[in-house]
């Protein structure tokens, strides 16, 4: 996918730091996401990719640094401002985080109903349409989330994230746990949302095929910093040994896994 022409900045992250106790997870992240851009963040398990997104969303409070959304600083923003900013966001949680007290369709329509933009009947209709987009039939709408498989839950969560047509969508591992065909359907959907609707997307994935397909730009997180970023075409000859090792999935290289054989 080629990058959109105009590159106004939608999200600007500067010097973002976050530690849990003595464990430093983010150690000065600098990252921009352009308007309408699809940025994919890759990186090993436990390097802080989910923490990065949660800091942007305000779920976690960063220790220092700045996050701007549409030029507005959001790190120390008050509760009302946070609600206003979060109205622009859609988020797919890594663990789906579906509301298990509500049927699937109400999960999907939740954001729409909360904003009182639609009646329950309209919300239900939109929810079923969104479910169809992620390959789930209308009969799924009545089920409870606990009656679904992991991959189905993930797709419901995806439908919920995009239901209110947010300006900025965060996808935390959208294709993990899906079969290869369904993974590609979801990739196409993400491409369609960013290209046709013009939404800005920040995705996290381990899946290199997926990131090549959905990304305008790929950034690699390692040791609390963004160590490389560039277009998907450049990732195979990045000249960066860390990126190389990750892309080719080799156990040997500069990234050491803490395992003992």
């Amino acid at each position, binding site marked *: 996918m080629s990058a959109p022409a105009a590159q106004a900045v939608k999200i600007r992250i500067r010097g973002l730091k976050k530690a849990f106790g003595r464990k430093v997870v983010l150690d000065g992240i600098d990252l921009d996401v352009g308007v309408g851009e699809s940025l994919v963040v890759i990186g090993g398990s436990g390097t802080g990719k989910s923490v990065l997104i949660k800091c942007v969303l305000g779920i976690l409070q960063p220790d220092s640094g700045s996050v701007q959304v549409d030029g507005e600083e959001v790190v120390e923003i008050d509760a009302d401002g946070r609600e206003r900013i979060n109205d622009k966001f859609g988020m797919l949680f890594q663990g789906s985080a579906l509301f298990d007290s509500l049927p699937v369709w109400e999960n999907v329509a939740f954001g729409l109903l909360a*904003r009182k933009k639609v009646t329950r009947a309209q919300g239900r209709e939109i929810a079923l349409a969104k479910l169809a987009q992620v390959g789930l039939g209308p009969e799924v709408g009545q089920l409870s989330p606990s009656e679904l498989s992991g991959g189905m839950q993930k797709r419901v969560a995806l439908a919920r994230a995009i239901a209110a047509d947010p300006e900025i969508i965060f996808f935390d591992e959208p294709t993990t746990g899906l079969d290869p065909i369904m993974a590609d359907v979801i990739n196409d959907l993400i491409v369609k949302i960013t290209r046709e609707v013009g939404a800005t997307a920040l995705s996290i994935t381990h899946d290199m095929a997926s990131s090549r397909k959905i990304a305008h730009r790929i950034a690699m997180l390692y040791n609390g910093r963004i160590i490389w970023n560039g277009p998907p075409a450049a990732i195979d000859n990045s000249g960066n040994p860390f990126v190389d090792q990750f892309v080719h999935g080799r156990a040997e290289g500069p990234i050491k896994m803490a395992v003992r054989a």
Partner: protein
Amino acid sequence: MNFLQPIGHVVLDFFATTGRLTLFAIDGVTHCFRPPFYGRMIVRQMVEIGYFSLPVVGLTAIFTGMVLALQSYTGFARFSAEAAIANVVVVAVTRELGPVLAGLMVAGRVGAAMAAEIGTMRVTEQIDALTTLSTNPMKYLVAPRLIAGVAMLPILVLIADIIGVLGGFLVASYKLGFNPTNYLQSTWNFMEVEDVVSGLVKAAVFGFIVTLMGCYHGYTSRGGAQGVGAATTNAVVTASILILCFDYILTEMFFAGK
């Protein structure tokens, strides 16, 4: 002074927790009065707290009333036992045992369930998901439960009062062989509006305590299934202790001058 250190920790911990709890309570109460209101959630919680607690509260009340009548019969002088038993039952049930026992039973039933439900929502990131879907979790989860608790406990206690007095009546008239009409007449004579009202005010306070503890411990739980388990236990234990504390404080406030 090393041996003082643990004591210091406990004291500091206590004040920190009290502070956090107070802030949480203020936040939750504020959201009860600021729109949007989630009517659907309030009704659901009212049914959960009020309707589904009826059997357990009713059973507690009837046995309490029965045992009160039986116990006081053995304790009183033979003469005028009838009036004395009616008096003991109606005063004890409306002032004390109705609200306290209903509060404790609801703490076990509802407080635990709330802590478990909200705690699970916390550790599975459902509460975080709410904030990304234009919904304030304090308003959506906590405020409806507080409202429902404060509204439903007095109703439950009113029913418990009636059932408790009925229990005393049954034992007095069928087992102890008193004249039912006389017994009812004495019950009526000894019943004070003030006693009933003070019991209902207590009930509202206990309703607030139970739901607040359930919400607070669930909301602040962490660390998976174990954390949720701990939250559930803490919710019931702290609610029960606070109910007994506030029972004393409120009694002193109501009846101090008499």
